Each structure stands twice: as structure tokens, then as C-alpha cells.
């Protein structure tokens, strides 16, 4: 059975939305995705979401009575997991059409969950006592070891932000669109050495939703799910197996490429969740697009920028487009737009797009291989 994304949409706006609640963002995205799919809520019999307020409340608020629910919450990669799980559920006959929603008042914190973990949790005992202050001090911890082992110069770390701003420059919805230089990045204030402000993602409000179903139920040009993979590493960054490579990136990527029966040469477009500037570097290497220690130069040479041979994070990414907290939904949305030929910074002739999402820093990852045609 061929599984497709039959509807995809974001909230009307992303960015600073202080008059939208978390719940409101979920529901607006859901309505937009249903309209995009040419469906109504009565077509939906499966629901997946993560975070606040959860799948039961979203289903109930929409007036959907789901036969299948998935609340898998493994961070910003959760939506990629949901797509993969929905495909399995539909193939198993558990449900027919799944709505996946994301809404997060990440910046304005309206109706949002509280941050924080108990002092008796793994994080509370073995990381919080050392003054960690969220992802800027956790996700970033691996970078100096990577730089030492591979010789990545700091200027090439900064090039990641520069390259992505070139895409954001072409996207009127991006929060930051003005072109920047390596010097601008290195002159921005230090957040957590070696990371400067412009090497850290945005914090925004927004949402997105997807409709996953079998090909025969799609009512518009479908985006095919050719393959997927999911994997986990350590729940806390200090216990990550190797700070210079992500096991979860590698394993989820291998699984997705194998199921899709594609090679790297087949990939026209790539999305790698970019919470911080080093993450696309790990993504390019761990997915096998370049060799170890080569990603920094690859990006600096312009291969991922507009006109390059491997367009990467073409919406501007979490660094320049938007980052609500769980960005994975927006990476999928951009891949769908590119495959439909509807992107703001459209790459000509995209037929195969790969999306890599990480969650809970490097704790989890999932990879999707999407295409606008069957092989």
C-alpha cells in the first residue's frame, strides 16, 4: 500500500503571535491542512500530536473520534515519528486517514506547558546541578569535541548560518531575511562559547499539520513516503555515545534510505533540523552525503546554498525561518512544498527530498524520504 502526505499546511502566520494560544495554533494548522487536502474532519480517523495539549484534546476540540491515537513525544523529531507510525497503522488497517498537528506558543508562551524537570530526574541529578540553561547549553556541548577531532574552523560553523540566511532572504515568511556574513555571525554576542547568537535558532510561535493516508484516498497531488527510519541515543547529552557523530542520525538515515531503495545521488533536496549551527554539519556527515569532517567545507563552498548541488534547509531553517521549539513539523512542510513546486525559494526539478529531524537534542532522530512520484 502506498502511503502519501495528502494535505500539508502551516498556521496563517509564524513568528510573534501573542494572541494565539497553543491550542489555537494546533487547530488553525489542522483546519488549513484539511482545506489543503480537500477533506473535512469527518475524513479523519487517526490523530497524532506531541506536547500540549495532547492528542485527546486536539481530537475532541476538532470533533474527531479517532480509532487510532499516537502521542509519541520525543522532542522536535516527533512529527517525523508520527508520519512513520501513521504509515504503519494505515498499512495494518488500524485507521485510514491520520491528522498530525503541531502548535507551539514557543515565544509568547500562551497556554504553553511549563518548562522544567524534577530534581530527582536523570537531568535533575546529573545535568541541572551544573547550571545548564536549556538547549543553548546542552545541544551545543558536542561542538568543541567535533571541532577538535575534525579540525572544523569556527568560520565554517558560522558559514552554516550564512548559507541558511541566503535561503531565508528568498522567503517572505522568514523571521530574518537580511543577508549576513561570517563576520556578522562572529560579531554577534556569545550565548554559550563557542556559539554566538546567530548560530542559535530562533524562538517563535506557530504550527503546522499533515494529513497522511493511502494513495487511493488522496484528493490532490500526493507526496509519497518512500521510506522512513527512527532511532534513539542517550536521553541526556552528557551520555551521548560519541560527541562527533549522532548514532540516531546514522541509524534512522540508513533505515530510511534502505526502505526507499535510494542512493545519495537520487536526493534533490535536503532538510536537516538546525536548532544550532553544528547540527546540519552532523546531518550531512551522518546521513552519508559527505565524509567525516567534510561538511563544514561543503557548506562553506556553497553546495547547500541557492544554486548549489544539494539545496539544504531551503525555508531558512530554524536559524532564520522559524523555530517554535519543536521544529520538525516545519522541515516536513518545506519538503512537501518543494516537492509540489510551491516553495518560496523553489528549487527547480525536486523529485526526492530527505528530511532529518532530531529530538531532545541528540536523544532521538527520524528520517523521511519523500517524493512526488513513485520509483
Amino acid at each position, binding site marked *: 500500500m502506498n502511503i502519501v502526505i495528502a494535505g500539508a499546511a502551516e498556521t496563517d502566520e509564524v513568528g510573534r503571535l501573542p494572541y494565539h494560544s497553543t491550542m489555537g495554533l494546533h487547530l488553525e494548522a489542522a483546519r488549513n491542512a484539511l482545506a489543503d487536502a480537500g477533506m473535512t474532519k469527518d475524513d479523519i480517523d487517526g490523530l497524532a500530536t506531541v506536547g500540549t495539549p495532547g492528542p485527546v484534546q486536539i481530537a475532541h476540540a476538532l470533533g474527531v473520534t479517532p480509532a487510532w491515537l499516537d502521542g509519541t513525544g520525543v522532542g522536535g523529531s516527533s512529527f517525523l515519528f508520527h508520519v512513520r507510525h501513521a504509515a504503519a497503522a494505515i498499512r495494518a488497517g488500524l485507521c485510514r486517514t491520520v491528522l498530525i498537528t503541531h502548535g507551539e506558543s514557543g515565544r509568547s508562551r500562551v497556554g504553553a506547558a511549563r518548562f522544567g524537570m*524534577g*530534581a*530527582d530526574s*536523570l537531568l*535533575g*541529578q*546529573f*545535568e*541541572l*546541578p*551544573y*547550571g*545548564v*540553561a536549556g538547549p*543553548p*547549553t546542552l545541544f*551545543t*556541548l*558536542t*561542538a*568543541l*569535541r567535533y*571541532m*577538535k577531532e575534525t*579540525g*572544523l*574552523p*569556527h568560520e565554517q560553523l558560522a558559514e552554516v548560518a550564512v548559507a541558511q540566511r541566503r535561503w531565508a532572504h528568498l522567503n517572505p515568511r522568514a523571521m530574518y531575511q537580511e543577508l549576513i556574513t561570517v563576520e556578522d555571525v*562572529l*560579531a*554577534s*554576542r*556569545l*550565548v*554559550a*562559547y*563557542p*556559539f*554566538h547568537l546567530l548560530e542559535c535558532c530562533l524562538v517563535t510561535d506557530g504550527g503546522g499539520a499533515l494529513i497522511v493516508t493511502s494513495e487511493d484516498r488522496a484528493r490532490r497531488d500526493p507526496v509519497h513516503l518512500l521510506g522512513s527510519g527512527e532511532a534513539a541515543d542517550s536521553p*541526556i*547529552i*552528557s*551520555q551521548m555515545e560519541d*560527541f562527533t557523530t549522532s548514532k540516531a542520525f546514522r541509524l534512522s538515515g540508513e533505515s530510511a534510505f534502505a526502505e526507499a531503495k535510494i542512493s545519495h545521488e537520487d536526493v534533490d533536496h535536503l532538510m536537516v533540523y538546525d536548532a544550532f549551527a553544528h547540527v546540519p554539519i552532523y546531518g550531512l556527515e551522518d546521513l552519508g552525503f559527505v565524509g567525516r569532517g567534510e561538511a563544514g567545507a561543503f557548506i562553506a563552498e556553497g553546495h547547500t546554498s541557492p544554486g548549489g548541488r544539494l539545496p539544504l534547509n531551503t525555508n531558512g531553517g530554524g536559524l532564520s525561518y522559524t523555530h517554535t521549539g519543536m521544529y520538525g513539523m516545519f522541515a516536513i512542510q518545506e519538503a512537501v512544498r518543494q516537492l509540489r513546486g510551491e516553495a518560496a525559494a523553489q528549487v527547480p526539478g525536486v523529485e526526492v527530498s530527505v528530511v532529518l529531524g532530531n529530538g531532545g537534542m541528540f536523544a532521538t532522530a527520524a528520517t523521511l524520504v519523500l517524493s512526488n512520484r513513485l520509483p
Partner: protein
Amino acid sequence: MKPVPKPTPETQPFWDGTAAGELRIQRCRACARHYFYPRPGCPHCGSADVEWVRASGRATLYSYVINHRPAPGFEDDGPYAIAVVELAEGVRMMTNIVGVEVVPENLPLDLSLRVVFERRGDVHVPLFEPTEAAGPRDRPERPAEATGRSNPGPTG
């Protein structure tokens, strides 16, 4: 007030150790490997035949950040180093680097460290300091290659 960890039954022996001035970690009797964080079975071979042992307290600097936006309780510290260190026994743990001015020049990766303990409420937290207390002036010369690329100087 800096965050105070709250022990659980699985982690209590670790925190009992720090209170006694010892860094205690677990070792598997079946495969002879050490592991951290505390848990009831060996993550390497799956054996439940595990014991608590006293670690040497010696470590090297694996990676770190210098945080410029302090967490609650750290406001008076100035920029501070959140680090992951690798113990001589092969396991890694998060900590802070103390006993040295926190600037990249003083913190080359693989720097030799030793454990010290800081009282925090009823709990003692393991921190690490350079084995040879060294300021920027009397720090032994290191070859440029060992520090140059891994620790580019402050650029912001």
C-alpha cells in the same frame, strides 16, 4: 540557590559517595566494564551482577561550553564552564570546571582534571579542577596544533 539534585534509590550510593568525598561509579562483574549514570544493570552486556567501586577521581576534559546566560543560582559566577569529562575509568559525566579562570585558553580539550566536591544543601556535587592549577600566565606552553583549531580564541 543552585539546583540541588534529589537522589533516588538507584542513585543513592553515588550521592552517599560524594558526601564521603568519594566518586563512586558502577562496574559490571560479568564484563568488567564501568558505567555511569547509576542504574540496576550493565548497559554493555545486560548483566545484573554489578557493584559500586570508588573511581580514581582523575579525568580529562572531553567537551564544554562557556555559558554567558546564567541559569538560576549561577548569576554571580560570571561566564562558567559546563563540561563533560571522561573519567580514567572510561565513563563520562557532566560537571563544572573550577579552580581556573574560565577562558578557552585555559581549557584545551583533554586537559587533566581531578574531582573536588561542593556542598549544595544536603548533597555534595562533584566538580573538576585542573590537576596542575594553571593560570594563563604560568600555564605550560602547549603546541599550537593541540589547541589552535579546537579552541579558537574568543571571537565575539
